[in-house]
């Protein structure tokens, strides 16, 4: 028996010795179950180009756990692929809440996919951070919903107001508006028409087109016939490419001073790389660009870590538009949990309503329906692009911020044809 006792002691000592480095070398979390953060991400399907946002979530999880977790508990991400289909979203979020018992929810990407989950969130009184859903809470008006994106108040109408402010400053009197027949683009165009009217501009052409239209030559000719001085476009990536190529092929009036506004696509590496110099002169919305007024050590550190992962995963190596705000979503959730010392939805929401939060995208304060109190959508003009090398977009001067004035790094180069040729 003595031998067996000695053997057990030896095994216990060995086990302790083997475990010691792991125990000492990692954060020790309390015995409580982890805090679970649930989300759907479009890993497949037509919106799969937004999946690089998941890197933002994962970097945040890595950071928060390295700092000891939240309330002494480890943070876990529970992520499902919604396949870019709104039909899958309700079931995914039911599972996240009822089966996976998630404490915090991040919405799917964008307005189209977020809309189906809003009634559920409101009915169950859950806490959610919204991911890029323009005017996502304007109907439900749920008091526990907060946007990670910088759309600002009255976003359905005002998020692209910067484009119209620039047009107004240029003395634009006639404007054309075109949009894809999809939720985000329709909202942007409707809001744009209202702002144009408010500024006394005549909308000489206002037309929508079906998604995945590949030829815009007829529409561009009709726009030219209306003789506008600015053209506001709310499009999706494939259409954005076709429109920009169409303008090059058909030509556009020299009277046009501003062209762009709400085109999705020129924010992503894929289109920046493929269109290259064809993008010169475009004035378009963005959420982050590496201009001097936006560069902070925190955001620089984020991109230093994001880029190698993105390259390895084969997603957008620039990642300016979406990933930082997925990290911001995590920071907002963390601030709410820490600040309220709870995962109770009401307490977390109350904290975010009462306190501004420091994030890698700056300090964020919220309205009663979770919009950023201050709109911080950028209007940038693409300039000086030569060739198709993506690395040039990491340097300042190629995506010059024209609006908001607090972040401005240059003046508008107009008219569009002249800026295009630059």
């Amino acid at each position, binding site marked *: 028996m003595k031998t067996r006792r000695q053997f057990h002691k030896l095994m216990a000592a060995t086990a302790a010795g083997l475990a010691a480095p792991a125990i000492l070398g990692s954060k020790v979390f309390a015995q409580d179950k982890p805090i679970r953060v649930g989300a759907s991400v479009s890993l497949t399907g037509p919106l799969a180009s937004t999946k690089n946002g998941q890197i933002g979530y994962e970097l945040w999880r890595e950071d928060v756990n390295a700092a000891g977790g939240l309330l002494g508990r480890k943070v876990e991400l529970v992520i499902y692929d919604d396949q870019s289909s709104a039909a899958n979203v309700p079931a995914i979020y039911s599972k996240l809440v009822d089966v996976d018992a998630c404490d915090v929810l991040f919405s799917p990407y964008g307005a189209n996919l977020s809309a189906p989950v809003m009634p559920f969130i409101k009915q169950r009184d859950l806490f959610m951070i919204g991911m890029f859903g323009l005017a996502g809470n304007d109907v439900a008006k749920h008091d526990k919903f907060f946007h990670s994106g910088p759309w600002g108040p009255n976003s359905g109408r005002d998020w692209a107001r910067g484009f119209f402010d620039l047009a107004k400053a240029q003395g634009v009197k006639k404007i054309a508006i075109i949009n894809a027949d999809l939720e985000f683009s329709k909202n942007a165009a409707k809001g744009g028409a209202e702002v144009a009217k408010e500024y006394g501009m005549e909308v000489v052409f206002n*037309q929508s087109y079906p998604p995945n239209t590949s030829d815009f030559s007829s529409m561009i000719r009709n726009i030219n016939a209306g003789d506008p001085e600015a053209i506001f476009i709310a499009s999706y990536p494939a259409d954005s490419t076709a429109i920009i190529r169409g303008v090059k092929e058909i030509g556009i009036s020299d009277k046009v001073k501003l062209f762009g506004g709400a085109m999705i696509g020129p924010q992503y590496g894929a289109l920046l790389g493929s269109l290259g110099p064809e993008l010169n002169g475009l004035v378009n919305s963005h959420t982050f660009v590496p201009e001097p007024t936006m560069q902070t050590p925190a955001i620089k550190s984020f991109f230093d870590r994001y880029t190698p992962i993105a390259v390895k995963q084969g997603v957008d190596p620039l990642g300016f538009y979406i990933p930082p705000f997925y990290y911001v979503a995590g920071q907002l959730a963390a601030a709410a949990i820490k600040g309220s010392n709870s995962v109770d939805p009401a307490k977390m929401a109350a904290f975010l309503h009462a306190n501004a939060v420091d994030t890698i995208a700056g300090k964020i304060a919220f309205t009663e329906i979770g919009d950023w109190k201050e709109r911080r959508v950028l209007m940038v003009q693409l300039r000086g692009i030569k060739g198709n090398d993506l690395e040039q977009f990491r340097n300042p001067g190629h995506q010059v911020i024209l609006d908001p004035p607090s972040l401005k790094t240059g003046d508008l180069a107009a008219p569009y044809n002249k800026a295009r040729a630059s």
Partner: protein
Amino acid sequence: MLSIDILLNAIVTGILLGSVYASLALGLGITFGILHIPNIAHPTLVVAGAFFVYTLTQWGIDPIVAAVIGLVPFYLLGVVLYAFYSAVFERKGGANVLQSLTLFFGLSLVIEILLSLGFGSELKSVSVSYIGLSLKLGVLTVPYRLLIPALLAPVTIAAVWLYLSRTNSGTAIRAVAHEERALSIAGLNPASVKRHAFGIATATAVIAGAALIMVGPIEPFAGRYQIGRVFAIVVLAGMGSIPGSLVIAIIIGIAEALVSSYLNPSWSPGVAFAILLLGLALRPQGLFGAAR
């Protein structure tokens, strides 16, 4: 506003777009129109062809040359796909339409996922010197981005039609659609003939893919947006009428362009189906199909 230059440009654009649609529909015209195999995966195979072309263009090869290079591999892919289809359904005597649709639906999903894994989900486009330039002919402005892909369709359709109508193996392909048993009595293996025809249909997908990626950027799921239109073209042309599909595609293209120019572009996706309904009401066998 009814200015003559907008009208003429709309008609020319419609002809070019229609021609590209005909390219997309050609393979389906063979598999569905002649072989009666409802290959709803064909638009996805076209997208796969576009990615094949994209890959070769990254090495500086012109898209059209890339498509020609792709003919043999895509023919072989088609042969393998038909062999699988035949083994699963035809040899067991149960190739009903619903099962076939399910098989090809599943196949298109698999291809989409493979393309996503292989190429990522970002849009892919080709950069060729003539893309972005236009041919000016009086009031007409014709983008090469549409003109060159549009020229591919009549050439490919003529080649396929000549093959089907002037060669023995082409005649066998047309015969297998009408009476398989008679073909067996004549000493030919219907499965072998169909396999060859399916290979040709799949080979046309790479030509159509080259046209598609020249017109605009593509992503792995781009085939979904074409499926309704290409079926409408094949059915309205009349099952098996390959040249007819070019005519119908151009009619649809012109109608879409005119609707976009003078009414509302949002209505254009309905144009193909409106013409289909009208056409079938007047001629149930299709505008160029023989009454059976």
